[in-house]
Structures are given as C-alpha cells and as structure tokens.
C-alpha cells in the first residue's frame, strides 16, 4: 500500500525534491536523509532523464551532474533500497524511462520494481491524463499512487479527467513555466486552489516556493502541502561548486527543511475555515 495518504493526514505536509545522484550517489544518500531529519513528510526523488522539458535551469543542471556521475534507473532503485528514511517516497521522472524499463515495453516492469524497493507513488511531468491509462493500471495493480500536476491553465473537462485518475495528492503548479526558485509567490496559486476546493485528495503546491514565508502563505491559502525542489537543489549545487564537505551541505539542507516545515505549520495555524466547507 502507498503510505502517501497518511503523510498528509497529520497536518500540512512538507514535500522536498532532490535529483537522485546529484552530484554523486553517496552524497545524495546523505542529502535525502538530511531532508528526512529536517521534517520531510513525503520525499520526491528525481530519476534524471536526459531531456527534462519541464525543468528550469537549476534542475536541468542537477540532471546533468547526476547523469555524468553515472545514474541509471537500476542504480536509482538500489539507492532507494539503501536509503534509511521513514517518509513515503515518490519517484519523479519522465515517461520514456518508465516505458523503456525491463524486457517488455510499457510501464508495468518499472512500477513493479519501484514497488519492490519501496516507492509509494509517481509524478511524471510529460504524461498528461490522456496518455496515462497504462501507468494508472500498473499503479493500481501494485497499490501505488499516481500524482498528477494541475497547471494554472487546466480547466473544465481537463480538471475532471485528472480528478478521475489522481491519487496520493494533486501537484498544484503555482505558476506557468518551468521549475525554479522564485522571490515571490504567484497569485495564480489562490485561483488554482479555489478550483480544486472540492477535490478529496490533498493539494500540494509547487513551482517557485523557496522560503518558509512562501510555505506559510501557500498553506494559509488552503494548500495541504508544499513541494520544494529548486531551492534545495541550489544548496546542493552551491556545495558542489565550492567543494563544501558533504556533511556541511547536509546540515544546510536539514536547516532549510526545518525552515520550510515551520513555515507550513505557521500557515496551518492561520488557516481560516473555507466558507464553502463550513
């Protein structure tokens, strides 16, 4: 069974992302474990793909570092097996790697292997609802969650198509564009959350969140969780560029995680009951 739903049950969830294997396998293990110590409720583990069309420059660079250090799907699964964390794990990758894995074409072998090593769910940025039925079926067969991204441009029938297929949580894309840390929080977030108000899966907001204040504001606005990627990848990149000790980088990640988690908690305290839900 996926452990994702229970992670959202105990208050606002902090969902950090790192590209696995960035800048190398061993450091990456320490970094993910540091995020868990910092309070991660769910962890998104990026399996790098050579053509990451949804990513901004920060995560593109992380993907390059990881691939150059030799990351492959099999090593990714070994990494997940070796990882010593309690938080549920979500694999974020592109469809070609899922489709090509194993001896037979199609997503089932990848999902089976991921389930064996303890992956609870999947986010696939280049797989819209229309093309997702084979992966949804494989996730159902192995009791895994399939998380979908809802964009600021998603409306009407598209929302329904996603609502029918989503499980675990819905990834609310806070703004148009690619991933990347931003200095402010988009106004599009409030409108997106309002469109999803009556959905019965948790709503986690991502794309651009980089500080505790952002996390606070997003949760206060009604989000059930915050997803943070590039702001954490920036810490990894900075450590790599300055030859910092792995333990120092891990400490900075843990501290950043605490900041973001605390922000989310403050946001939950300010949350006023939604008029439509009372």
């Amino acid at each position, binding site marked *: 069974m996926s452990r994702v739903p229970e992670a959202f049950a105990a208050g606002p969830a902090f969902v950090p992302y790192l590209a696995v294997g960035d800048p190398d396998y061993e450091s990456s293990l320490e970094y993910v474990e540091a995020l868990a110590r910092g309070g991660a409720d769910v962890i998104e583990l990026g399996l790098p793909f050579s053509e990451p069309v949804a990513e901004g420059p920060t995560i593109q660079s992380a993907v390059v570092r990881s691939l150059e250090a030799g990351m492959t799907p099999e090593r990714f699964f070994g990494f997940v097996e070796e990882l010593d964390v309690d938080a549920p794990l979500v694999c974020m990758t592109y469809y070609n790697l899922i489709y090509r894995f194993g001896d037979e074409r199609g997503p089932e072998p990848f999902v089976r292997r991921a389930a064996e090593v303890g992956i609870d769910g999947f986010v696939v940025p280049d797989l819209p609802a229309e093309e997702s039925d084979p992966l949804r079926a494989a996730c159902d067969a192995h009791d895994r969650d399939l998380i979908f991204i809802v964009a600021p441009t998603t409306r009407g029938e*598209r929302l329904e198509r996603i609502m029918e297929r989503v499980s675990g949580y819905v990834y609310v894309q806070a703004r148009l564009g690619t991933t990347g840390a931003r200095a402010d929080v988009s106004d599009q977030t409030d409108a997106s959350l309002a469109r999803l108000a009556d959905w019965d899966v948790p709503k986690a907001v991502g794309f651009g969140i980089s500080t505790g204040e952002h996390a606070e504001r997003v949760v206060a606005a009604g989000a059930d969780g915050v997803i943070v990627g590039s702001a954490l990848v920036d810490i990894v990149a900075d450590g790599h560029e300055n030859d910092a000790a792995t333990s120092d980088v891990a400490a900075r990640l843990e501290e950043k995680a605490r900041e973001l988690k605390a922000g989310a908690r403050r946001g939950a305290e300010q949350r006023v009951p939604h008029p439509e839900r009372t």
Partner: protein
Amino acid sequence: MSTNDGKFGDYGGQYVPEALMPAIEELADAYERYAVENEDGFLDEFRCRLRDFGGRPTPLQRAERLSERYGREVYLKREDLVHGGAHKLNNALGQVLLAKYMGKERIIAETGAGQHGTATAMACAHLGLDCEVYMGTRDINRQRPNVFRMRLNGAAVNPVSVGRGTLKEAISETMRDWATNVEDTHYVIGSVVGPHPFPSLVRDFQAVISEEAREQIRTRAGTLPDSVLACAGGGSNTMGAFARFLDDEGVDLYAVEAGGSSLDVDEEAGVAPNSASLTTGSEGVLHGARTKLLQDRHGQIMESHSVSSGLDYAGVGPELAHLVDAGRVTPVNVDDDAAISAFHRLSQLEGIIPALETAHAFGYLEDAGEDLGETVIVNVSGRGDKDLESVIEETAKRDVKNAPDLDVFAGGTGGLR
C-alpha cells in the same frame, strides 16, 4: 484522411506537460477548423500567400545529366526555389497564418540548420507577428548566414547552450518557453514531430510538395514515378514529398537518413554518431510523441551526429516511424562522406548547390541499384548557400575525389567569412 486522433499505429500521441495541454487542444481544434475544413477561407489565403510570397508552384525538372549517369529518368522537385531556399516556408507560413487566425501575438520556434528559423522569421515579418527563435550554440556556429537572416527579418535568436547545443536541446528549450508563455504564444514546430496535432498539421502544410509533384510527373512523363527519394531528419520534407503518393502502391518511397560517421553506438559516451533513427532507433517517447529514437538501453536520449545540422536529431516523426513499420516507406542511410561527395556532384552536374541535408538523398541515388526503377523523383528540399562554410571545412578534412580545389579561398582568412 487528414484528420486523426493523433496516433499512427502505436506511434504519436501527446506526451507533454499539463500546462501545455490546453494550448495543444486549442491548436488541434484550430487545425480541424481552419486547415482541414477551410473555415474563414484559411486554406484559400494560405495557398494565395504560398503563391505570391512563397513562389509556388515549384518546378519539377528533369535532371538531364543525372538521368544519363544513372540510366533512368531522374526528376528534381525544386523546393530549393521556394522563397528562403527550402521547403520549410510551406509549414512556417501555414502555422504563422494559423496562429494569426487563432489570435496569438507571439511566435516562437526552434531551429537546427536555421532553415526553419529563417522561414519562420520571414513568415512573421510578412504577417506582422513577433518572433523568437531558439538555436543551439553549436548550430549557430555552423550556420551563421541563417542567423543573420533571422536577425535581418526582425527575429530574436536565443542561443541554447545546454547539452551539445543542437536541435534536440533547442526543441526542449522552446517547449519550456511555450510552457511559460502559452496564453499568447504559438510554437511553430519545424518538422512532423512533437505532440498531436503537430505531426498531422505539418504534414498537411508540406503535402503541397507531393500534390504538385504528382500532377507534374503525370503531365511530363505520362506516368507515376517508380520511386520518390527524400532526406529524413525529423521528416517534414519527407512526409511532404510522400503524402500524396502513399496510396499509389506502385510508388516506392525512400527516406534517406544521415548515416553520420558510423551506424555504431557508443553507449558509454551516450553518443550515436549518426541520425538514423528510422534505421537503427527503437521505440520511445520524446518531445511529445511516441516514435523511433536513438536512445541507450536505459531510455536516455543519445547525442546524434550528422555533418548536416538539419538532419542532426535523435528522433523522427511518428507517422514516418509507423510507415516504416508498415513496410510502406523504406529507410536507407548515407554517411557524411557520401553526402559531401553528392553535394559536389549535384553542384557540378546540374548547376544546383543543394543543402547538405538534400545531398543525402542524392548520395542514395548514387548508391542505389535497379530497385529505384525507371522513373525517380528526388526532392531537392533546400539550397546549399547556408552550408558553404561547412562544406569547405568538411571537404578539406576528407579526400573527396570530385571536389574542386578550394584551398585558395580557405587558406588564411577563415574561409568565406
């Protein structure tokens, strides 16, 4: 026949970020209404502009000396005579006009050799829309004249330096721009690749090539051809040259891919030193579609190679992949050396300097045996002015028996710069 659900057998589909899906649905709707059903006279205006601005129809010319050399009737479909020097305008003009009908204000495009970028820049200047073109830094260096042409037509050229800086990276970066500015922007994709409806839309705009050629050959030779040859990178001139012959069972269709320096693959380095995805590729998902790809055993996309920027791509249009599997299109390939040699041959024998992409089709004409039959059409997809610097460099690296002496120009001053 032009409409479909975006699938070609197992290939095609719409594998793009959710943020782009509404724009792609809007485009699919506009494609049906304007480009298929001719709403508001779209197709009439398109054909009128292709004629007056684009210079269509292009001739179908009998190549006298090539016919003599090969002992068969060789006809050239002269897409090099389209305004801008390549078939690319057929699609760019169609899509920019479509964007205008859709009320979009801004056009973005990727380009490899620069031919699609220049065509899009020309079409945008002609129709009064803003234009930005993404181009890999490596291609910018290989195709400088086209960069200047785009700038002269008022387009911005945005260098893409990630990866090897070629077409694959330029497409990814253009998709990122589109995902950011999707509300007022149309992405004019340059080939029969990408998510539905692009492969069908681009094929329909390029089908004018075979529509004209089919009538012209019947008038000139009183018969349909035995075979049609076109080079294939993404495959837009290929599908354009094949589309109206698909139902003619007696017409063999050859897609000539870039064999590059070798068909072997270096998995460790992530490099396939060719662009022969129809010949050697495997099924996968890239840039919005399921198709044949150059990829390693894990599914990571390989770096392709060709002496010709316009063919240098790790994927290919999904419909071509399907037609190859169905046995309707035969994929063949021609390596860098043979393409350079064919470039010089066509220049000398017929007075036509072809694009390096096009030269691959003539490389196969030289190699092929009796299979091509009595009457052959070769699609001259573009002219080679943009390639002169590369050809001088690449010729100097090789022992090309039929090349003229270019040393006097190449020495000291950096070629033709």
